[in-house]
């Protein structure tokens, strides 16, 4: 049989179309369902922080660092100490992220308090919006995560986060951040920072759990999120947060 040049292209074209239809169909129907007792749709995670309970011990920072092998000099959570004086800019310190706590503050003529900080796990997160490759995302249970196999290390998200919660991991050169201890909370444990907090200043909460104490807490207390004007729908709620906190 004679095969003309044109005939060859025609056959090739038909085969291509067939293969691509097959591939597309497989993509639609071939995805496997996750086999796990943990139901993504049943949770919506967040955190409560009670400023009046934080003693600035740095236990959360050390706990997070050990649990998540956070590289030295980088922090997924840290504690700031504010000294607020009338008519002056507030003095904010966080020596080594409060890894070893703080040197005692002796002057009592200023308003002073501690503010623990971490990723706010925003529902409408700027870091997710800027990622060009879909490497960072809000999981169906409300946790902002990074796919380290997809991350290019372009650092757009580091710049986009209004709360300074992201860093480039010095070894992997991909972006790293608080995972809200996703590996723990999905198996019924609390986060390392909450586990280690001696005064329960931090509480992991699940907004979708009707039994969670968060509902009563939000009903009975005056709470605020950091930088509410950024409209990021942050899910870390602070009780008795001072207006000077940025």
């Amino acid at each position: 049989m004679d095969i003309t040049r044109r005939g060859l292209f025609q056959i090739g074209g038909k085969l291509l179309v067939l293969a691509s239809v097959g591939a597309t169909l497989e993509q639609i129907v071939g995805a496997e369902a996750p086999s796990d007792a943990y139901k993504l749709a049943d949770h919506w995670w967040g955190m409560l922080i009670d400023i009046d309970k934080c003693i600035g011990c740095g236990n959360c920072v050390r706990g997070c660092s050990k649990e998540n092998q956070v590289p030295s000099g980088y922090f997924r959570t840290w504690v700031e100490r504010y000294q607020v004086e009338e008519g002056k800019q507030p003095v904010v310190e966080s020596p080594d992220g409060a890894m070893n706590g703080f040197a005692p503050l002796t002057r009592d003529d200023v308003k002073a308090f501690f503010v623990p900080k971490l990723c706010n796990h925003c529902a409408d997160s700027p870091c997710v919006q800027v990622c060009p490759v879909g490497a960072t995302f809000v999981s169906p249970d409300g946790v902002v995560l990074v796919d380290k196999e997809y991350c290019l290390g372009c650092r757009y998200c580091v710049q986009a986060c209004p709360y300074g919660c992201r860093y480039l991991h010095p070894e992997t050169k991909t972006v790293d951040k608080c995972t809200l201890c996703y590996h723990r909370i999905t198996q019924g444990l609390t986060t390392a920072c909450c586990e280690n907090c001696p005064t329960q200043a931090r509480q992991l909460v699940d907004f979708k759990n009707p039994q969670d104490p968060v509902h009563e807490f939000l009903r009975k207390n005056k709470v605020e999120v950091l930088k509410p004007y950024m409209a990021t729908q942050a899910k870390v709620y602070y009780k008795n947060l001072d207006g000077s906190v940025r």
Partner: protein
Amino acid sequence: MIRPALVLLAAVGVFLLVRAAVVPKDFGRYGHYRPAALNLVRQHPVSYAGQVTCAMCHDEQVNARKAGKHAHVACEACHGPQAAHANDPSIVPKLPDVADLCRRCHEKDAAKPGWFPQVVTAEHSGGAKCNDCHQPHNPHL
């Protein structure tokens, strides 16, 4: 007309074929990301075993703590991450150094809330170790 249409069709075919090869099967199921990333994050090992696990064996300490002001302080907040010990009790954890441990929380600091018990350690104990007088699991004298 037919010829450019066929070329276009072939181009679309090539695009779809390449796309199917490089984009993970379930990309986009929950959003613009790879659902497999969720499991990737979950694979991280646990270092802090958690309160419930500690209480399975150490009920004596848990009961001692219940009666005192440290009732709500988790074991690993002072004793450090003990998942390795929980998995293999033959790994014996080191006791924390009280000098450093107690001071981190109880050293007087004007930024600490007033309700929290604080002391200037240099004046308070005259150099004695905290646990010479206070039992860490129930620190009341």
